[in-house]
């Protein structure tokens, strides 16, 4: 005898009285209807930002990187800051879909689809920065190990910058496969219930002809599990390798072994914040509050307070080690971070990343939606400053005082950054309109164990004494056996 039972201690993952059909209705309805006014306004602004970004990039390519504020002392400015920021944001999706799958965290099913989409779009944005930072972007293919007429001269496989090329392209590809393989059955659902011919045609193509046989699902589960197993070290490796871009150098402030775990924690921290930013809005506009519940947001806030604290410890460790090393270069680098001309960026980072998330220790605040939303933005501002602090305030006062410099961005750099917001939100708005933002098949899978109405039915079992319960189970077990023997 099999009983679908989950402890009452756990909150339901799906609120309200849902059955399988209602789940499909709730999640697919927004795709079949016309989007609201808010969608058009948001989409329009995103497109404008995107075009401004394209203009800024075109300007930078045409006139060269001299149009940027970077100089000989500070060679990496806003662009690499933004690169690391976006790639960090891109970590939450795979963490939710892969690591939480391995940890059997049921609440991931409500948020994984949107979080993975966010990951893919964030990695797309991140990838723009190193590409356009090349300046002579038409030579960009030199990073690929292709046979060529220059020897053939190969890229340097010992260089962290090349590791990054491999790490990010692999991460993008694997995330995309993971995301799309989960989407296929949901596209089949949209196809099968489509009323218009065009929708049937397009979702027919997108669904790859999925019909959901028992064997299909068996392989799907095997694929998801192995992809999760592969993505788990992958997601940790990506930001580790990004941190190697800094940590393998000999610049004071960069040359430190704490960087890989510190970067990964920071990435998860900012990624979950971005998921919260998006989902607080999405659940409201698409009326999905019963699927993305306050419990989901609270779970993510818990991750935020944990990773925020790890990041805080890392900042303090860095300070301690710079003093403990008694290396004057290290000590000076940190002194100028805190008290130099860029003091404001250091303190913005400290306040946003270390101090403010501690408020999430209070359950009331973790479950407060406006507060969650504000905090999610504060965290991402803080994480942007973290990267700015690492990149700019480690380089602006180098070994030769004569070359000390100051850096502020020029308009094409700011435009480029805004442009990636345009790219990100254009993609996200299209996703929210044409894709099921919640994994329908996965919600159906957990519905009978974690749905509110099904949990309520379990009250009968909850009311029984232990002995009664055990006796009934045993009786049912014997019946099963008797039947089997009879057959």
């Amino acid at each position, binding site marked *: 005898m099999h009983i679908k039972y989950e402890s009452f201690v756990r909150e339901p993952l799906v609120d309200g009285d849902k059955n399988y059909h209602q789940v499909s209705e709730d999640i697919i309805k927004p795709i079949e209807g016309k989007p609201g006014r808010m969608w058009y306004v948001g989409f329009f602004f995103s497109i404008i930002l995107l075009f401004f970004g394209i203009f800024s990039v075109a300007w930078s390519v045409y006139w060269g990187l001299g149009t940027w504020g970077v100089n000989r002392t500070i060679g990496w400015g806003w662009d690499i800051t933004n690169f690391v920021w976006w790639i960090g944001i891109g970590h939450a999706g795979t963490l939710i879909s892969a690591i939480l799958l391995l940890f059997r965290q049921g609440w991931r099913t409500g948020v994984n689809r949107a979080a993975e989409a966010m990951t893919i779009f964030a990695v797309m944005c991140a990838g723009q920065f190193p590409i356009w930072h090349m300046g002579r972007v038409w030579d960009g293919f030199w990073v690929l190990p292709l046979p060529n007429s220059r*020897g053939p001269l190969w890229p*340097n496989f010992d260089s962290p910058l090349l590791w990054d090329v*491999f*790490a990010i392209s692999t991460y993008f590809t694997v995330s995309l496969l993971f995301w799309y393989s989960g989407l296929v059955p949901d596209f089949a659902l949209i196809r*099968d219930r489509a009323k218009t011919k065009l929708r049937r045609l397009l979702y027919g193509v997108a669904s*790859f002809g999925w*019909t959901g046989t028992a064997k299909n699902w068996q392989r799907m589960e*095997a694929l998801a599990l192995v992809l999760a197993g*592969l993505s788990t070290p*992958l997601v940790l490796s990506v930001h580790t390798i990004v941190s190697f871009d800094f940590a393998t150098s000999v610049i004071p402030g960069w040359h430190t072994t704490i960087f890989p775990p510190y970067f990964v924690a920071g990435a998860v921290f900012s990624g979950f914040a971005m998921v919260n930013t998006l989902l607080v809005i999405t659940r409201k506009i698409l009326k999905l509050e019963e699927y993305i519940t306050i419990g989901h947001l609270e779970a993510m806030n818990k991750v935020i307070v944990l990773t925020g604290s790890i990041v805080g410890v890392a900042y303090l460790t860095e300070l301690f080690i710079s003093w403990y090393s008694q290396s004057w270069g290290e000590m000076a680098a940190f002194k100028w971070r805190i008290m130099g001309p860029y003091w404001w960026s250091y303190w913005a980072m400290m306040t946003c990343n270390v101090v403010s998330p501690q408020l999430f220790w209070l359950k009331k605040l973790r479950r407060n939606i406006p507060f969650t939303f504000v905090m999610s933005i504060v965290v991402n501002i803080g994480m942007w400053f973290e990267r700015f602090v690492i990149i700019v305030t480690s380089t602006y006062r180098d070994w030769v005082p004569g070359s000390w410099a100051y850096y502020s961005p020029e308009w094409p750099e700011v435009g480029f950054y805004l442009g990636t917001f345009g790219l990100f939100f254009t993609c996200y708005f299209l996703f929210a309109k044409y894709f099921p933002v919640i994994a329908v098949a996965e919600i159906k899978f957990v519905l009978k164990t974690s749905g509110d109405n099904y949990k309520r039915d379990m009250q009968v079992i909850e009311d029984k004494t232990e002995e009664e319960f055990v006796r009934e189970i045993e009786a049912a077990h014997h019946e099963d056996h008797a039947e089997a023997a009879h057959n």
Partner: protein
Amino acid sequence: MAIKKFAVAAYDDEAVLFPAVKKVRKSGYKLHDVYTPFAVHGLDEAMGLKETDLHIAGFIYGLCGTSTAVGFISWIFTSDWPIVYGGKPHFALPAWIPITFELTVLFAAVGMTMTFCYLNQIMPGVKKHVFHPRQSDDLFVMAIELNEHTPEAEVIDFLKTTGAKETNVQMAEESWWYGRWDKKEEYEALNAG
């Protein structure tokens, strides 16, 4: 590629589906397949399907990725174009670990996904017969292949006793074909009315 006759039963609860599958297997009728809107755990076992070997394929693809990376980089750096980078030896294995790892993951993931598509016969443009439009929504649909020894009335009556909500007989293409999902196929006219 063959158009065959099927008896179709739709169930609205997994709890009814499992005993029904058991009964069909015991009855000796040819169980074509069961279509479900989500992964129903234990259904493959109940139907007597073997565990998939997809993960073994993934492991082999991963090994291919590892050997490609190590083989290619070591050939380049020790024989094709040896350069001293930062005083490292030509055969700088620790420095190749990141790329080796990434390629292992990449090969395993891409290879496995392609194998997954091949085994399931899914691809953009592929079309298959859908026995019930709600088999991806809330119904669990079982199809039994009919032949001259299994009169359809008998099978339908049998399916009704298993607790099916809906039953019917359909002509269906058993395999996949290239086609557009917005177009009706010729054989589907046989099922009209």
